[in-house]
């Protein structure tokens, strides 16, 4: 029961932070970090695969509703929801022993960093390609992906360090 409250609380805080603060910081128009994916990264390690995908889809759809971007966040979130168990298994071969919220308490920092890096890159690539669905601004899309992913990763790791 506690883990439910913990996750719902985390989702609410991250969503509000994302919508009210981060989406209002216009940094040259290319840096748009998505801190809310920390919710999907931190979901319990033992979550059934189907539940993880559904939760990811609903999280993305919620973000879409709030940000007027039909389907875009949902598509990006489903992809990382699908990828997380496989990534976890790749990064930590004996992932059966992982229990509870995925954070630096159950993963060592390099492994956690690799997980965050992979999930952020997958999410941001899909997100910005779908958001700017034109080819003439390809360089801009690539720049957006790199800069925003760097910002997202810094924010997530920064928060993790502060908590330690």
């Amino acid at each position, binding site marked *: 029961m506690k883990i439910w409250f913990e996750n719902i609380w985390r989702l609410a805080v991250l969503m509000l932070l994302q919508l009210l603060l981060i989406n209002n910081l216009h940094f040259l*128009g*290319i840096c748009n970090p998505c801190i809310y994916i920390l919710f999907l990264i931190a979901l319990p390690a033992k979550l059934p695969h189907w539940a993880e*995908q559904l939760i990811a889809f609903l999280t993305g759809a919620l973000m879409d509703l709030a940000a*007027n*971007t*039909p*389907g875009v966040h949902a598509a990006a979130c489903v992809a990382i929801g699908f990828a997380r168990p496989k990534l976890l298994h790749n990064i930590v071969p004996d992932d059966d022993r992982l229990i509870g919220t995925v954070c630096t308490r159950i993963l060592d920092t390099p492994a956690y960093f690799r997980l965050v890096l992979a999930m952020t890159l997958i999410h941001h690539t899909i997100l910005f390609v779908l958001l700017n669905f034109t080819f003439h601004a390809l360089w801009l899309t690539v720049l957006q992906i790199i800069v925003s992913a760097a910002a997202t990763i810094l924010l997530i790791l920064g928060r993790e360090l502060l908590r330690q």
Partner: protein
Amino acid sequence: MWQFLVKYSNLLLFLFLEAVALGLVFSYNSLNHSAWLSSANRIMGGMYASWSNLTGYFHLRTENEQLSAQNVELLNRITALENRLEGVNEALLPDSVSAYIYAEKHLNYIPAKVINMSTSTQRNFITLNKGSRDGVEEDMGVVDQDGVVGIVRTVSERFAVVIPVINSGFSVSCRFLSNDKLAPLHWDGVNYRYAQLEDVARHVEVHEGDTLVTSGLSDAFPEGIMVGVVDQAKLSESDIYYHIRVRLAADFHRLGYVQIIQNKTRAEQKKLEKWGTEK
């Protein structure tokens, strides 16, 4: 078959969810996507409005400066109009028929506050805190003290969603102040400060610094509202049309208060024009 489904159930679920999401993305253009412009809905609108109330205080100083500047400008215009009116009255003989020509359009401005906006995607939107109960309707023009902002796309009871100039689906007919040539303005989705002019043929004289205003040919905007200034006009040997970059008058990062233009004669004009096309 059943074993196949069980074995690949996660993959199938993934493909299904992605298909739903991508379906939403790509039906965006073809469907009437008003239903998705959801920041006009009650919960999101309310949330953005209260947040905007909270953070609004940080911008009070610049807002005040802008408002006072606008006041001064309006006062100046009143004076100028009074002067002209006097001139007209003197010219009229006491017993002559009225030479007064009514203003072409009867306009009314609804003040509104920006409570949410995006500037970093190619399809940006702005949410305003005025809706149908304040008289806002679809397709009304929106301006701020600097110039054209956008056009109202959807309206709920208390909120309105605006398609701004910096949405790649937006286009507005502009007129060069210097030579009265017309051209449509588009945004290419790269920089929120600059938009592009297409369809300006090479025989037209275009200079950097030329002012662009609305043409008055669309019913959303009256004639002569500032759109932007030509920033760069390129023309190579083989080009038929100019590549023109326009610095937009409205600064979308500093948008605070805007005015929605209510054209009181629009319904009548529409009705007449519809009658004309049906004949």
